């Protein structure tokens, strides 16, 4: 199936831990993104990468570090997790202008 897949689907961890979320797309898209959905369901972009290069960093704390080993993968590493990091994180990809975005199924992160 052509898709954007992210793992894990659920992540429960303690404050202060470091965790990673992985994302892969097999759509041949050039650009990949991380979005954060807060408890009020508001969706906001965090990062975007185009062909492995960082394009957008929306004033995200530097505890969040994206890494793109190739244009089909974009991982998100989070250091020193805080309670406020609890949210659903969505990975997405898109081709150049004229096409829509495809989203992964989300990772629900709970920091306790």
């Amino acid at each position, binding site marked *: 199936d052509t898709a954007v897949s992210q793992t894990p689907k659920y992540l429960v961890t303690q404050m202060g831990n470091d965790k990673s979320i992985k994302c892969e797309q097999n759509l041949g898209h050039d*650009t990949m*993104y991380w*979005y954060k959905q807060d408890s009020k*369901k*508001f*969706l*906001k*972009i965090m990062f*975007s990468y*185009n062909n492995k290069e960082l*394009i*957008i960093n*929306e004033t995200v704390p530097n505890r969040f570090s994206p890494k793109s080993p190739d244009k089909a993968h974009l991982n998100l590493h989070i250091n020193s997790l805080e309670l406020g990091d609890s949210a*659903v994180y*969505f990975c*997405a990809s*898109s081709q150049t*202008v*004229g*096409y*829509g*975005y*495809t*989203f992964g*199924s*989300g990772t*629900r992160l709970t920091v306790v």
Partner: protein
Amino acid sequence: GIQVEQSPPDLILQEGANSTLRCNFSDSVNNLQWFHQNPWGQLINLFYIPSGTKQNGRLSATTVATERYSLLYISSSQTTDSGVYFCAVERMAAGNKLTFGGGTRVLVKP
């Protein structure tokens, strides 16, 4: 940055009813999409519609780009239509990113 406003914020429907959701945006856009977030949290792409009208089964959408709004029509609603509907826009001059509206939470009662 571009502002995206959706109305109404909440909508309760009886199964079989029709409804219209609205999305207003503050600047010209290159891309507009409608998404449905189902109760399991999945974001399903409904329409890519920067302009014009499209239909897919009981759903249809119209974007009037010159007047900066888009409408999503749900006809003969079913309980499976429940969830949150998001409008999102992209303005290339602002970089490659989708800016989302606050969503319309829809509950269809049997």
